[in-house]
């Protein structure tokens, strides 16, 4: 057992998979010699050498094309796209190529690859380095979308993503890199598509993911202590596959649903979740379904503005209080 930050867990996860499988290679901009712009991949070059840990030019299309071609010919590659915003310059490779090829070829081509990326806001980087792309990716049939909120989940879900035979978008929330937690020694690998109940309560189900998980948990403690409201908090951990069964179970039990989403509101992942809930357990509901999201705007940079934009603990507390009556 070791206490690791989420940042340290990234290299721990990649190393675990590279030791296990010689077909795993890792490439991206500044990931090898420099250890990554977020210092998430330090030490990998030293352990695995320049044939397996590779610095690339600034060529996002070539990076994703390379891992796709490598995956279809027997490797299990991992690529880093430095900031998730940069997927906009190579999105064709994701949505037209990776996502469609197995289906179009009637199952002839397998693409066991992972695209890892720094996602989300909270660090005052401004609108072009703070995007939440989970809802972009979720809208594309054929891409799995994974987002851990703790160091141990990062390792276990990353391992599962590497071992998965389908393309996985692995979203590392930049705002969570400093979060610490215990990670067991030895092989850590979880299953994709399994949500975790982080807090059990009787009054409402709060469904969330990523950076919003610790905020929802903090809000739940405040609501319990100060207002006697007892919340269930579900960490989805992946959006595709989506653990609908877990969501429905706790919504039915509590009669209420709140989603807490970092992505901008329109067509955010919670829109899908609320539509499933409305359709499949309408008669078990005691109240309207409520989404707490970032508004329909690009993210502003200054701290005061960004903090009032992405759902905060205060906003979560305030909204739940208002809507629980």
């Amino acid at each position: 057992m070791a206490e690791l930050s989420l940042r340290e867990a990234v290299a721990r996860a990649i190393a675990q998979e590279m030791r296990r499988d010689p077909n795993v290679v890792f490439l991206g901009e500044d990931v090898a010699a420099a250890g990554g712009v977020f210092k998430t991949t330090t030490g990998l070059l030293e352990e695995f050498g320049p044939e397996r840990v590779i610095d690339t030019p600034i060529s996002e299309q070539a990076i994703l094309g390379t891992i796709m071609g490598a995956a279809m010919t027997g490797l299990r590659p991992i690529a880093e796209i430095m900031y998730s915003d940069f997927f906009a310059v190579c999105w064709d490779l994701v949505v037209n190529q990776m996502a469609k090829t197995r289906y179009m070829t009637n199952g002839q081509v397998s693409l066991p690859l992972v695209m890892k990326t720094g996602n989300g806001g909270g660090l005052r980087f401004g609108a072009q380095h703070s995007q939440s792309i989970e809802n972009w990716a979720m809208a594309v049939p054929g891409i799995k979308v994974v987002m851990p909120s703790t160091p141990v989940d990062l390792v276990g879900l990353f391992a599962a993503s590497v071992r998965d035979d389908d393309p996985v978008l692995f979203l590392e929330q930049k705002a969570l890199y400093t979060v610490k937690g215990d990670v067991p020694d030895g092989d850590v690998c979880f299953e994709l598509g399994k949500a975790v109940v982080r807090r059990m309560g009787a009054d409402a189900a709060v469904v969330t993911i990523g950076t919003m998980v610790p905020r929802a948990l903090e809000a739940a403690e405040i609501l319990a202590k100060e207002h006697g409201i007892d919340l269930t908090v579900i960490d989805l951990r992946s959006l595709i596959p989506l653990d609908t069964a877990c969501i429905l179970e706790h919504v039915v039990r509590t009669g209420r649903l709140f989603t807490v989403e970092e992505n901008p509101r329109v067509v955010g992942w919670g829109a899908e979740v609320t539509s499933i809930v409305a359709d499949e357990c309408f008669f078990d509901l005691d109240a309207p379904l409520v989404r707490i999201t970032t508004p329909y705007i690009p993210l502003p940079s200054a701290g005061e503005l960004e903090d009032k934009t992405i759902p905060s603990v205060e906003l979560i507390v305030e909204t739940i209080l208002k809507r629980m009556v």
Partner: protein
Amino acid sequence: MTEDNTATATVVGEGAPQLTTRLSLFRRMTELRVFEKRVYDIFLQGLVKGTTHLSLGQEAIAAGFGEAMRSDDWTFATYRGHAHTVSRGVPFAPIMAELMGRRGGLMAGKGGSMHLTSVEHGMMGSYAIVGAHIPIATGAAFSAKYRKSGQVSVCFFGDGTTNIGAFHEALNFAAVWKLPIVFVCENNLYMEYTAISAVTAVEHPAADRAGAYGLERIIVDGNDADAMYEIANKTLDRARVGGGPSLIEALTYRHAGHSRADPGKYRPDEEVAAWIAKDPIPNYRKRLLDAGVDESVLDRIEKEVAESVDIATELAKASPPPGEDLILKDLWSDGSSTWRN
């Protein structure tokens, strides 16, 4: 080719290939010609919906590489990919059935004309987003080098494709890492309906950019099967022994329009006539006769090819529609398209 280009072009076409090879090249080109003409006919008959992009006139390129490639080498092609699929040895009938949207199609009707793929033949896909497959082909080359498998990745694309970013990103990648890949630009002078010269800063869209990636400037007569076979061997060998990538610009012309029933009216009549005179197949036929091949040998090849295309057409027509059971299959590796429990 201008004087200037001749001076800098790699000299090809010196020693002629062996007779058996030349007969094979002739057979391959004949297959592509007869097949593509049949595709055009059945498109006009309404048996093929959507779209097609034919390689009529460009057969020598696919034939030369098809002849030279090792069976475990990889082909990456564009939406103009029927010829490259046939030239890797994929039988006519499943290709034809795919174009017609039938169960017996290469991908059971899920891909269509623009996405022909047969992994078992090393035909790693036909891609319909201009330029996207160039980095993907580069990734296959990366994998060959990493696994030291001796395989070579061959990536075909058009002149117009040299103006998209993915082309430049991939060339740089391949050159930096000395990957075993051959990039083949089939310069047919047009990107869809626009002359390439009207939209490109250099005269030779591929060859004039080769130097930017430290690569040799290679221009070859893409209507000469012997020359294509020779340059294919040379560049494949170079890639196989660790000599890195090559970029070939093969000069050619499509006889038909860009796609479907496009009559190609945007092209001057004299230009079309001049290129029809350079038709790769009758010229090659004549070359073989001049070299002493008995005409009956060539006649027999043509007859055999015509018969097999006829048989394939009937087989494809007899194949049933795909069946709705396929719709929700094979999004994921477990065969399903399940995204929630």
